[in-house]
């Protein structure tokens, strides 16, 4: 559905994307995970044809994406990171304006506006000016404003930035429902929880390069350990943490130590050591590795650093 081939995009002082290649399949929920400034938004802007790449090509549904090629944009709905809405107009007027650019027949557009507003629980507020909406309501409106032409592909650029958990969940449910109905979704985020919850397959991007790609299970399996061990910081553990370093590398974090086990790590021997060194079990937690662990493993940094 989407084929990105050897894309490079250079800004005056930085290489935003460096020879990136990706493929997103039809009806896939694809995640692009990376810290701020990794190049996610630049890639989204290239996908909609807002920018032209310096090198490489992008094809959507077989058609090459360019700044001048307007036809491919009918297949795409972009949910921008910013709230791209007219604050002084009503929700209904906003949708009417954005829908009109797709030359949808008037009656059909009215029906779709009603349907979309109902689907994000904003129909009752349709006549209210957007500036009176909460952040979550604006985010939901921002989302459906990209859906009026019923595009097969939805590009969501961090669509849940700065909103409450309830609105975030509502947006997640809505996107999952759209994906189930057959929409292809590309979702950028720097929240690994979002990627884990929504995406079937992800690519991790850092400093303009794709550093990993696959399903979440595939990526985590690449880790040289099955779990990480968190040890709560207190007087006892701070004094004795060096005694545990033979089991793996220890990272000093805010309120705990994180132990990444060495190859051949045996849990039974680790607990024996705790007992021998009189470190209570209650200070120790076993964690299944996450995308965060994988990113940390790959880059030595946390996603939100």
């Amino acid at each position, binding site marked *: 559905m989407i084929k990105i081939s050897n894309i490079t995009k250079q800004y005056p002082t930085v290489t935003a994307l460096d020879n990136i290649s990706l493929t997103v399949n039809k009806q896939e929920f694809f995640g692009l995970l990376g810290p701020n400034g990794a190049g996610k938004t630049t890639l989204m*802007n290239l996908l*909609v*044809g*807002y920018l032209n790449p310096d090198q490489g090509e992008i094809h959507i549904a077989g058609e090459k994406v360019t*700044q*001048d090629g*307007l*036809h491919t*944009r*009918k297949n*795409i*709905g*972009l949910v*921008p*990171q*910013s*709230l*791209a*809405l*007219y*604050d002084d107009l009503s929700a209904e007027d906003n949708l009417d304006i*954005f829908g009109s*650019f*797709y030359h949808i027949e008037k009656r059909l557009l009215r029906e779709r506006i009603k349907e979309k507003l109902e689907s994000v629980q904003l129909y009752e507020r349709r006549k209210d000016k957007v500036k009176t909406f909460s952040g979550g309501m604006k985010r939901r409106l921002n989302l459906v*404003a*990209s859906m009026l*032409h019923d595009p097969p592909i939805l590009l969501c650029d961090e669509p849940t930035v700065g909103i409450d958990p309830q609105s975030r969940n509502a947006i997640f449910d809505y996107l999952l429902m759209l994906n189930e109905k057959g929409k292809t979704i590309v979702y950028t985020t720097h929240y690994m929880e979002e990627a884990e919850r929504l995406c079937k397959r992800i690519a991790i991007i850092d400093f303009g390069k794709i550093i990993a790609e696959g399903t979440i299970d595939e990526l985590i399996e690449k880790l040289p350990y099955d779990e990480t061990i968190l040890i709560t910081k207190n007087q006892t553990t701070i004094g004795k943490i060096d005694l545990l370093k033979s089991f793996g590398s220890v990272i000093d974090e805010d309120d705990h130590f994180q132990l990444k086990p060495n190859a051949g790590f045996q849990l039974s021997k680790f607990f024996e050591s705790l007992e021998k060194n009189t470190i209570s079990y209650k200070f120790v937690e076993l964690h299944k590795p996450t995308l965060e662990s994988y990113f940390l493993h790959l880059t030595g940094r946390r996603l939100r650093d």
Partner: protein
Amino acid sequence: MKTILQLIRKDYKLFWSDRRAVTMTFIIPIALIIIWGAVFGNLNKGGTATKLHIAFLNNSSSPIGKKIERVLDSSKTFVLIKAYKDENGIRVPFDTSSIQNFVRKGSVSAALVIPADALSDTSFGLKLKFYYDPKNDLEMQMIDGMLQKTIMTEIPDIFMQGMKNQATKFLGLDSGKAFNNEIAKTVGKYFKIDPKWITNPPVDSMFSMMGGSDSSKNSFFQNILQLDKVQLVGQDIANPWATRSVGGWAMMFLLFTLTATSSALFEEKKSGVVLRLLASPISRVQILWSKYLYNMSLGFIQLLILFTAGCLLYQIDIFSNFFNLVLIIIAAATACTAFGMLLSSISRTAGQANGYGMFLILAMSSIGGAWFPTSFMPDFIQTISKFTIVYWSMDGILQVLWRGAGIFDILPHIGILIGIAVLITSISIWQFKKGHVF
């Protein structure tokens, strides 16, 4: 106290980091002071920054007529235009009819004619014809005042010569001279005055003899200098002041409006709406054209409403030449919109666009003649003024409302305004292509 100083330091740091604020605070006032200084500084010195052009025709063969012509020719205040160019570009000296047409066409604001009977044998008074077009009241008052002052300064000499000539004419050359000398001797003997002083009195002492103060002197000269003033244009206009000034003010407000609406493009970019638009099947060119046409139509509507308000409130007659008014308004709105688009294309932020806009609008309005006549300005500013939208728009509107100009009269104005619009729009498109808005 330390905290207050730190807070002040913070405000200065913020101020200096805001280029627009710095520009607005220092550069704009300095630029405007320079422009105003060039105009008013010279006015206060008792003249204008440049010479005032008036049409001139001397139909009198009298020495007085020749003297007035010579005086005005050598004046630092006036430039006398004595001929016009016909359709073939040949210079043709004025006659009584063509000099009036010259004023009617708006080539100059005033014409001075010394008629054949300027100083008739039976009168001590000097009669001059003064044709004028008060399209600019301030300029007209200046020309009128300066003209009278210049002639008045020289007139006593001319007047005395005239009196002597009259005596000579009646008595014959030798008898007249002898008569004058005898009279002078007799008067000198009884009043103990040098007879030479009587035959050739200094001008100022003549007024003292008459017991005249400055005002009575002026009154005396007013009686001997009779300017027969004939208004050639705008006699029937109900409210000359409003009709003359509406164009300048309208243009200034139009530019402010269009600058504000053009900078809205930056707000749309900031909010992400531009990205949303460009993610839909809309091209950059379409966005620019829509902005252009929107601003142009808004400018047109604004001007139309402004003129209609002028019509209702100040009896400005917009309907007797409505079609031509609409044409010049469209041309002005087109050029002003191009100006707004240029600001968008060269700026990085809405604040910057508004800052540049403020400076350019105030500069164009003052240089272009919206606040005071361009004829008062130094020659180089008058030349620059012809590159401003305000000058051509204002003059076009004035031609239509004041002179009742037809389509062929305002074609140059329309052509120049559209030409400016095309030029500025080309620059804007070039800037947009490599610019920051998209």
